[in-house]
Structures are given as structure tokens and as C-alpha cells.
């Protein structure tokens, strides 16, 4: 069951002119969060902005074993993300969670390939840690506009997660979209499964998710994608966050991504 915490800002680190990582003292939530779950966040007080906004839990913070809080990786695009970007230590951010369906983890010999586009990196820190903890060989495919917008590379590398990068301007890794290295590796692994099972995890802009789901399918690999829909409540109350999903009858139906997701099987989604 989700809890609502008036979380104190412990630290706020700017990674670029748009990106920041904000540490929030919400141990109750951090402790209960599974990889892929999110929180509904409202910075400051007062009615502007009115509604909470969804953010993946980025890191779970620990001090000598004890969970002390969580961080959010935020990209500035509007009111709330600007408030998060400008927040200073001591401010409070009201934080509701954990919410949503987490990723399903895979065990060896299966491998885990995480595909992140931009701020879509957020859910993969906790997912990567959980996978590595089970000994699952984990790779992060990570794409962005330019090398300056690739963050936390050492963080992942130091945890034994292999990195495959792509940037649209070619300043780091392959030039172009992240699907370039992904398809190359899928091909190499071979659709005949010369390599053990691979689970493809993806988070990023929806057109990227669609491309990833399709290329995974093309090479016979299952995928789990975390979608980003505008959410009013995060708890199934408002029906704002729906996404079309294939139903039994071969038709489609709108499913609330806040409780039916945000993680879906790539094969289940209807890409409108």
C-alpha cells in the first residue's frame, strides 16, 4: 500500500542545464520500492502546480545497510521539473508511492539488456542492481542526443553492468538512435538463441519503445517496456493515463498505465 511522505530534500545535484538528481528523505517509500515502480511528486506548497507528477525511483539510498531515502533523476521540461531543478536542501517534496507494476526480473543463464533513452535511464539503476545481485549478466544500452547527456556511466560500469552507448551527434558510442547497437547485438546473439535467453527492458520516449519492442520481436526476444503517459493520480482514479493494449478477443482496450503498468510486455501493446 502506498504512503504519502513530506520528504525533505537532502541534496540536489545538477548534472547539466536540464538534468538533476534530487535526494529525498523518504525511507518508507524507498524501502518498499521494486525496480520499475514510481512515485507521484509535488514540490513546494500551494496550488501551483496543482497535480502531482510521476517519477521513477532512480536510486535507493543506504547508509550502513539502512535505507535512508531515494533519488529522482529529473529532466526539466515544465513547472514541476523546474521546481525540482531549483529545489534546495531543506525544501520539502511531497512524495506518494511506491506505485505501479515493477519489472519482472530474470535469472541466469538468461541475460538482461536494458535499453534507456535520455531520462528513461531512471528505472534502470534499481533494476540493474537487482539483476546483478541475482548474478544475471546485465547490459545497458543507453542513448541520448549527445555525449554530454549520458550520465552515471561509471555508476553502472562499477557495478559490473556492460555499457553500449549511442548519441545522435555521435559524440559517444554509435552515431544515431540506440536501436543501432541494440539491433547489431540482437543479430549477433542470433534469433536462433545461440545465446541463452535475453530479456529486453526499455524505458524512454514512446517511439523509441515501439522501435525497441519491434526489433526485439524481430529477433525473437521478449521485452518489457515502461511507458510514460500523462498521469493525474497514479492510483487508478482518473483514467487519464490509458494506453491501448491487445485484449483476448484480438481487439484492443485502454488500460490504465498507472496500475496496469507502467511496465508492459512489449508484445501486448498496440502502437497507435
Amino acid at each position, binding site marked *: *500500500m*502506498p504512503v*504519502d511522505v513530506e520528504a525533505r530534500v537532502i541534496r540536489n545535484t545538477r548534472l547539466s542545464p536540464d538534468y538533476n538528481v534530487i535526494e529525498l528523505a523518504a525511507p518508507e517509500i524507498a524501502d518498499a520500492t521494486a525496480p520499475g515502480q514510481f512515485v507521484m511528486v*509535488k514540490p513546494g506548497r500551494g*496550488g*501551483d*502546480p*496543482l*497535480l*502531482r507528477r510521476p517519477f521513477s525511483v532512480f536510486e535507493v539510498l543506504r547508509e550502513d545497510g539502512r535505507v535512508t531515502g531515494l533519488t529522482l533523476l529529473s529532466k526539466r521540461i515544465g513547472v514541476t521539473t523546474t521546481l525540482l531543478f531549483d529545489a534546495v536542501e531543506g525544501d520539502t517534496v511531497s512524495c*506518494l508511492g511506491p506505485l505501479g507494476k515493477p519489472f519482472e526480473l530474470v535469472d541466469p543463464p538468461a541475460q538482461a539488456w536494458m535499453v534507456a533513452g535520455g531520462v528513461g535511464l531512471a528505472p534502470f539503476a534499481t533494476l540493474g542492481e537487482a539483476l546483478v545481485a541475482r548474478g544475471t549478466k546485465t547490459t545497458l544500452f543507453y542513448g541520448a542526443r549527445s555525449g554530454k547527456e549520458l550520465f552515471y556511466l561509471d555508476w553502472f560500469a562499477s557495478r559490473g553492468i556492460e555499457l553500449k552507448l549511442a548519441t545522435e551527434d555521435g559524440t559517444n558510442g554509435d552515431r544515431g538512435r540506440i536501436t543501432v547497437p541494440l539491433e547489431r547485438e540482437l543479430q549477433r546473439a542470433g534469433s536462433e538463441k545461440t545465446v541463452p535467453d535475453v530479456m529486453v527492458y526499455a524505458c524512454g520516449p514512446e517511439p523509441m519503445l515501439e522501435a525497441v519492442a519491434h526489433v526485439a520481436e524481430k529477433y525473437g526476444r521478449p521485452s518489457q517496456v515502461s511507458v510514460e*503517459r*500523462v498521469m*493525474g*493520480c497514479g*492510483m*487508478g*482514479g*482518473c*483514467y*487519464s*493515463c*490509458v*494506453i491501448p493494449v491487445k485484449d483476448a478477443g484480438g481487439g484492443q*482496450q*485502454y488500460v490504465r498505465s498507472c*496500475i496496469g503498468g507502467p511496465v508492459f510486455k512489449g508484445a501486448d501493446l498496440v502502437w*497507435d
Partner: protein
Amino acid sequence: MAASGCFGYGVEYADAVDLASIGAVVSKGLFMKERSGHPPQRIVETPSGMLNAIGLQGIGVHRYIKEKLPELRRLGATNVINICGSTLDEYVELARVLSDAEGVHALEINISCPNIKEGGITFGCSLHGTFDVVSAIKKVTHLPVIPKLTPNVTDVASIAKSAEDAGADAVSLVNTFLAMAIDVETRRPKLSNIVGGLSGPAIRPIAVRMVYECRRAVKIPLIGMGGIATATDALEFMIAGATAVQVGTANFVDPFIWSKLLDGMRDYMQRHGIARVTELVGSVDTSTREKQWISS
């Protein structure tokens, strides 16, 4: 009470909230059949409010009775069913079906949904339209019938009056205000449905005025809503004339709002030595104020 469309079917909130404690759960608007609703984007935030154009996505009355109602009864919820018809016959048929179901406590007649052509707003915007729906439904049900009025009218009090004349047991007000937001960069409406319904604190002063007007026009109880986010807001509606209140948008912001509202109202009543809520209802004093020396 949880406002329609703002609380799912209620079961979604079962582990966050004790449904038996919140007065009543008003269901999402139900049609006879399942509806897929409008494509996204379905909501957009506005100053102190939000627009929605969900399009009454829903499972239809039969699945509701089969899949949701038993669970809601188990949880001890008081269930007010919000019904929505494309035709007079559909309203009547919905009322008939629900009257035979176990655990339905009242019917809220949605003649005010601004978001769909056949959302009954055609009924809700005219006097005889309102009269006809309500009296037709009264004929086929023993349940309390509570038409929900639209604020998108010139004279809401006269509509409340025709609902009363038709035998309504109470009226709910207000539904959302028809509104619109445009993304200036793309020059496209922000909602896929182009227009949507405005709710939230922004509309509260208009809704309070409408409750105040209706209180003076009818004798039946009023269920007030529109931007309630605190106990003070709820009290404002009751003092204006509402016997009960519903909370919609604010529940999205704070799903734990219910206990805060109840505590705040209890505290207020103690401070003012008010024994029963009914003493508050419609107690607004419109005589001119005498002055006092407030030490500042």
C-alpha cells in the same frame, strides 16, 4: 463523498482508504454498454484546476454489477451509482437494472457530462429535459434519485427546481465547466477531444454561488462539489446550503484527504460549539457585518 469519475470504481482505493468511512462512493459514470472512452491526451492541468475529457470509459452496468459491486459491498461502501444515458430509454433501463441489484443505495443521474455528445447534457441544459429524465426514472425505481446538474447554464436554480418538481430526492452540483486549452507551439488543442471539463479549486467560487442560489430555490437536499480540497472548503459549501459534499480532483492530489477533511470539520464544529452538521447547512448570514476592534 467521493465524486464520480474521480475515484475509479472505488475498489482502486480500497487499500489506501476505508471506504466505509467516507460517506459514500459515487461510481464512475455508467452506460448500459462498455465504452472505450476518448484517446489520450485526456487531461491537462490549468491554473488551480484541470481539464478532463475521459469520455466515460467504462465497463458498462452489467459487468459493474458482476465484478465491482460485490467487492464494494464486502468493503461496506455506500454506493451511489452515477448513470449516463444516450437516450431517455437508456436512463430508464439503467435505473431499472440497478434497482434490482444488491447494494445500490442511490442513483446519481449524470445529465451534465460536457465531454461526450450524447452525455445527457442535452437533457441537463433544459428545464423540461431535466424534468422528463427525472420523472421517467422515478417511475421505475425505489432508490433515491439524485440528478447531477451542469454549471454550464444561465440559471441553475430553475433547473434544480424542475428536478425537484419531477420528484428528485436531492440534486448534486456541480459537474465540470466546458473548457479548452491550446498548445500554442503546435496550435493544437491539448486534449484529443478538443474541449473538456474544468474542475478543481479554480471553479469553487462559482460552484459555491450555484449552491447558494439553489438552496433558495428548492427544499430538497443539495450535494455540493467543485474544488473542495480542505475542510474549510467543505464547510463553505455547507454554509452556502449543501447537506453533503463530494470531493473529486483533490483526491487525485491527496488520496488520504478523507480523514483530514473529517478531522478538520470535527475540529471546526467543536471550536464553534456546533452539535450537528445540519446546523451549518445554509447558515450563511447575509446581513451586514458590525465592526469590532481586532487587536492587530
